[in-house]
């Protein structure tokens, strides 16, 4: 039967979710058999997949650390995923207890899980929205309640843009977000890249992710750098994520194996 257009989407846990696959890569158990099957297929094709996820998650941690050190107290984390370990509000609020965080994700299960975790934290909230509707995110009452856009906000779009195709005009989406930000705000981006990877690996990864609601859209370092339009990239610019302000010298070894590129930009003015 055709679904009537007024009916909201249902919950389909028979389909792998990229949020729960990611949790699996990170070593979590917030996942179902379908998710594990897809994640294991990915690991079979790209054995470093768990390390890539870990490298990205570590980048996220260092970026939040950097931002709190820079005085940022407000975070809008879009595509926040299943809260496993090392979430933005934990890192930020450990450094700055007054930090406020709003999580945004399209995955209803991820959102329900976040909501349970955040219960009782009056400086953090979660919103079910889509990065492809930035105006809805910006006007959402919970976003408005917790974040003051007259003051700097760090917008995090970490390990999400590879689920946003060029047809969805990511540059425009980010421009809409940027327009809402005060000077001194930041943008954190990371995403999967295939630079230096074999065509087979890339094709296999794309095939596996086609079984999810979020097919992959790989970008090059140059393409990601272009998405920082309007922001000044902080050192060291868009790099393999392990190379972004590593905490120890050996942290950045074999950086390109992470297959993740990322960077942090600051809104001047």
């Amino acid at each position, binding site marked *: 039967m055709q679904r*009537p257009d*007024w*009916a*909201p*989407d*249902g*919950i389909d*846990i028979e389909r792998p979710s990229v949020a*729960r696959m990611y949790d699996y890569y*990170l*070593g*979590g*158990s*917030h*996942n*179902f058999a379908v998710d594990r099957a897809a994640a294991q297929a990915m690991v079979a094709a790209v054995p470093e997949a*768990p*390390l890539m*996820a*870990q490298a990205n*998650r*570590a980048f996220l*941690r260092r970026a939040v650390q950097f931002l709190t050190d820079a005085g940022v107290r407000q975070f809008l984390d879009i595509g926040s995923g*299943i*809260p*496993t*370990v*090392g*979430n933005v509000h*934990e*890192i930020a609020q450990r450094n700055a207890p007054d930090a406020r965080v709003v999580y945004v994700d399209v995955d*209803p*299960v*991820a*959102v*329900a*899980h976040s*909501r*349970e*975790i955040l219960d009782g934290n009056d400086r953090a909230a979660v919103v079910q929205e889509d990065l492809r509707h930035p105006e809805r995110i910006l006007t959402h009452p919970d976003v408005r309640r917790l974040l003051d856009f007259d003051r700097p906000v760090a917008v995090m779009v970490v390990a999400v843009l590879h689920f946003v195709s060029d047809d969805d005009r990511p540059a425009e989406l980010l421009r809409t977000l940027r327009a809402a930000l005060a000077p001194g705000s930041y943008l954190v981006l990371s995403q999967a890249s295939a630079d230096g990877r074999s065509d087979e690996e890339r094709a296999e990864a794309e095939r596996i992710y086609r079984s999810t609601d979020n097919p992959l859209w790989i970008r090059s370092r140059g393409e990601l750098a272009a998405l920082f339009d309007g922001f000044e990239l902080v050192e060291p610019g868009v790099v393999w994520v392990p190379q972004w302000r590593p*905490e*120890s010298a050996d*942290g950045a070894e074999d950086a390109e194996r992470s297959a993740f590129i990322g960077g942090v930009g600051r809104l001047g003015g």
Partner: protein
Amino acid sequence: MGEPPGATAVPVAGPPAATAAPGATGGRAHRPSAFARAWAKAVSGTSYLPMTQAQLEALLQRLTDQLAAALAAEPLDLRVGHRVGTELVAAHIASAEGLGRTVEVVQLRLVRDLGLVADDVEDRLARLLAAVATGYARALRDRTLDEQESIRRAAMTARAQAERALRASEARFRHQATHDPLTGLPNRTLFTERLTAAINSPGRGAERVGVCFLDLDRFKVVNDSHGHRTGDALLVIVADRLRRALDGYLVARLGGDEFVILVEHTGGTDDMVAVAEAALAAVREPAVVDGHELTVSASVGIVERQVAGASPGDLMRAADSTLHWAKAAGGVRWALYDADRDRQELARHALSAAIPAALERGEFYLDYQPLASLHDGRVVGVEALVRWRHPELGVLRPDSFIGLAEETGLIVPLGGWVLAEACRQAESWSTAGGAAPYVSVNLAVRQVDRPGLVQEVHGLLRHTGLPPERLQLEITESTMMSTAAEPVRALRVLADLGVRIAIDDFGTGYCNLAYLRDLPVTELKVAGEFVAGLRAPETRADERILASLVSLAHALDLTVTAEGVETAGQAERLRAIGCDAGQGWHFGRPEPAERILERIR
């Protein structure tokens, strides 16, 4: 998510080992030993660790200190091993690989790196490691189960939420589908549903149910003169008032300015009349819309009956017909359903619907009634009268089907057939002596208003060869009055051709003689009512009116025929007044043309 419990300080059982650095249990930073660094290196990458390498090393240094202390203490406290295993998992070093690497590095390096010496150190280490593995596996199992439970709970919550959202949107959709967007009242769909339920619910047969159809009088005028926005605003006000005045009954909007009220469990028609009057009163209140004070009225059709044997469709239709009766009676009122009247109307309606097929099958025919000269009794003309030989109902006279044919427009084909047939037959009439009688045919207003009238008549005359002066077209006074300039011009063209134009039923309408001067009229047919008045000797007034009418007509060069002449006395009086011709039973009833012709010949 969440801080590993006790990540900052876990009291260590037993005294600090000699080899442990002072303060190791206090969580204060101190340089990690080579062993702790090696351990950190071994476990990093086994799962995501939400901490810096330095934090990881500090944590493992603390656990190293605890293990070392335990190995040195007597007796060997295996709980320390369990606790270390638990702590590792709590710090998210929580994977099969994490355990494997830990066992490996502790087994290979702990004793050597820390330079621990004891006779049974191998033995003690094996037991302690087993305790670490046990504690670790238990904690990992619990953690896995907890996470599975929490993600399942999240999935259930999300699903419940999605279902709620679905139900809400279904409810919204259902509301939209069953309500009128302008007024917010239930719409026809919901009304029909509720009416059907009221009728079809089991055990309700003995109850009574009623429906009021309400429609604003001349609402179109409001729309036309104030615009649709004002019209809509008025409808919203009316809807609101009806809802409030009829609280407890279902008030729905059917569309346009039509509303309907459902009354269940009525006690009889009185209840319905009360509802209708409340509705009429609610509508009557002046309403201020966009600064205009608008006063509207309404008409209501009421149906009330026992539930048994009722059907929603029939009830709605009956209420609709009844509403039309109220409207036809001038509006600002209610009308009560009358089954007999409805049956008659239905029958009439069925009859009119059968006209086209009857025309095709040749079920119509013409009779003629003579128009006789009052001077010499000669038949000067005949009026064509249509008959319908109905296969079931027998021969029908025009009054049983012409009215409806006029309403529905079927009069155009039917009247056209009559005209053509009359011309065709009249052409063949010849009389031995004087001129053949002219044939007089009635034209309905719709026929007169049609643009092609002149061509139609012209064509018929040419076709049949009937001389124009032997055709008379009868038009009622009201047709004449309601007709615009164009049809009058058409009649003039026909009159110029020589066709006779008669005003039928003269005296029943405006009775305004002045306008006759400007019309191409040849004859007046005075309505039977006037003639009827001549029967009683005391009604001199009628006679005088008639006399002055005749002299006026003559002054305008019109001939006068009196209709409905039934007696010789009337004929005599009319002759005395100066009337030219007469028609009625006295001169002959309608009959086939041959019979009349036979008599004349």
